[in-house]
């Protein structure tokens, strides 16, 4: 009982403050056999090295994806922040910030290594967002459509993997990924509504961005 309360308190504290360097989130450890902490953590305690490696790589690439999406919206805001589309982009950016925060917590709790290429995604994401925004509102929306489509496809394939493996074991994780996937699809649809397709060279732009996203996903899973 006390342990469950402790777990809840720890997770609340970690949500209130910045997750990095908080000393109190210690003992929700990897091989916690106790059932009471299970309810509050998104991942089940890993049963062997292979499962840990698989979950690690999934979370690592998801974290990298949200981080990149964040930077893309930041780039778009830097260019289009003061125009009419500013509030719309800001709204989508806020949702991505929330996703990123959630992944930061999970990574910290479950001791998952973040990808080494984060500084690269930082610069690349910002540059992509800024450059497409320079093409105007339609360019920014086209970039959003392309990226969100890639991300939702990626989340879908993760959902498929987890469902094939063991849906009951990963219920919370599946719920989380489904929720985020639904948000990304919403962003994708918003982009389409706001004249994404009317940018000149839409197909070319979209294909190029999606190829870049696929490469980023592939690398972040490994490095």
């Amino acid at each position: 009982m006390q342990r469950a309360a402790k777990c809840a308190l720890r997770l609340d504290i970690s949500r209130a403050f910045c997750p990095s360097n908080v000393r109190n989130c210690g003992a929700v450890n990897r091989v916690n056999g106790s059932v009471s902490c299970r309810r509050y953590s998104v991942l089940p305690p890993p049963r062997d090295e292979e499962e840990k490696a698989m979950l690690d790589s999934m979370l690592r690439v998801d974290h990298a994806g949200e981080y990149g999406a964040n930077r893309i919206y930041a780039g778009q805001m830097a260019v289009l922040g003061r125009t009419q589309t500013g509030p719309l982009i800001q709204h989508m950016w806020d949702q991505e910030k929330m996703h990123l925060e959630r992944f930061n917590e999970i990574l910290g709790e479950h001791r998952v290594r973040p990808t080494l290429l984060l500084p690269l995604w930082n610069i690349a994401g910002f540059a992509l967002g800024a450059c497409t925004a320079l093409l105007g509102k339609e360019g920014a929306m086209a970039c959003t459509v392309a990226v969100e489509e890639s991300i939702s496809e990626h989340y879908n394939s993760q959902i498929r993997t987890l469902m094939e493996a063991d849906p009951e074991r990963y219920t919370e994780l599946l719920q989380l990924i489904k929720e985020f996937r639904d948000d990304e699809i919403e962003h994708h649809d918003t982009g389409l509504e706001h004249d994404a397709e009317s940018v000149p060279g839409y197909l070319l732009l979209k294909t190029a961005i999606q190829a870049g996203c696929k490469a980023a996903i592939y690398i972040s899973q490994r490095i």
Partner: protein
Amino acid sequence: ASPLWLDMAALIRGLRAGRALRGLGGVAVQGTRSTQCSNVRRGFHRAALLRLASDSKSDTSVPPPSYHEVHTAGESSSSSAQGESSEDAQPNTSFQDQSGEHSEDYETEEQLQVRILTAALEFVPQHGWNMEAITAGAETLGLSSASTGMFNNGAGDLVLHFVAQCNAQLTETLAEQNNQVQLGQAESKKTGEFLKDAVEMRLRMLVPYIDTWPQAMSILLLPHNIPDSLKHLSTMVDDIWYYAGDRSTDVNWYTRRAALTGIYNTTELVMVQDSSPDFEETWAFLDNRIKDVVNMANTAKQVQATGEAVVQGLMGAAITKEIY
């Protein structure tokens, strides 16, 4: 050669072949792969199991004795790791009877190896890190010296076992201290102090073997031992930072671990040639290195804050200029 020697060697070879043929998951090809791969995997498995056990042990109040029986492959390693500290997560292949269950009197090859290596550590100050120590250890357990034939890597196995054991002990102590802090029974330490205490605790475990430690270090640097020793080192550093409270998810994750790895390695080197009473010079060196790293981190933060302030100021000036 005596018939008993031949029997033992043949039996061990038979077990190995049996394991290779069983084709169990990813480790199926252990027998057919080169011995280094199997040793890397096995050695790290042992370490991982020691860690799993110590992680779970930190939650239970009574550490159980190390050498309980292993159950069938169906049971999860987390529940059985509660009971054993050296259990093999892989299905057992030695001495299975008809039902595939293990009978009470036998243990796995892994467990036996761990027992022999632990016993061998006693003889290291006398013989050094080599097969002689392992042979002496095996003989203390009442086994014939031929049983050391199962250690392909010999000295490497012994050193890696020792490192894994020390790391498991360190993790257990850190987890226990963390529990104390969580329960409010102890004060939490500042990061620098925590790191210093953790590294000192870990290095003190080398003190009984300090005379032969340079030999062990060079064994760890042999090419076929490097993957394993790097894994042990990185897991240890990750553990220390985790219990120090690091939850960073950006490039700091890497810089912090790199810094601590550097500190640990250099302090270890200082320690092996330190002749001061109770290694005072080593701890003073460690203190200074930790202070350096903490200073650098603070300076970096200040530089970043200043940089941001400067940028804000420039933006403000640009906007003001624009208005005019």
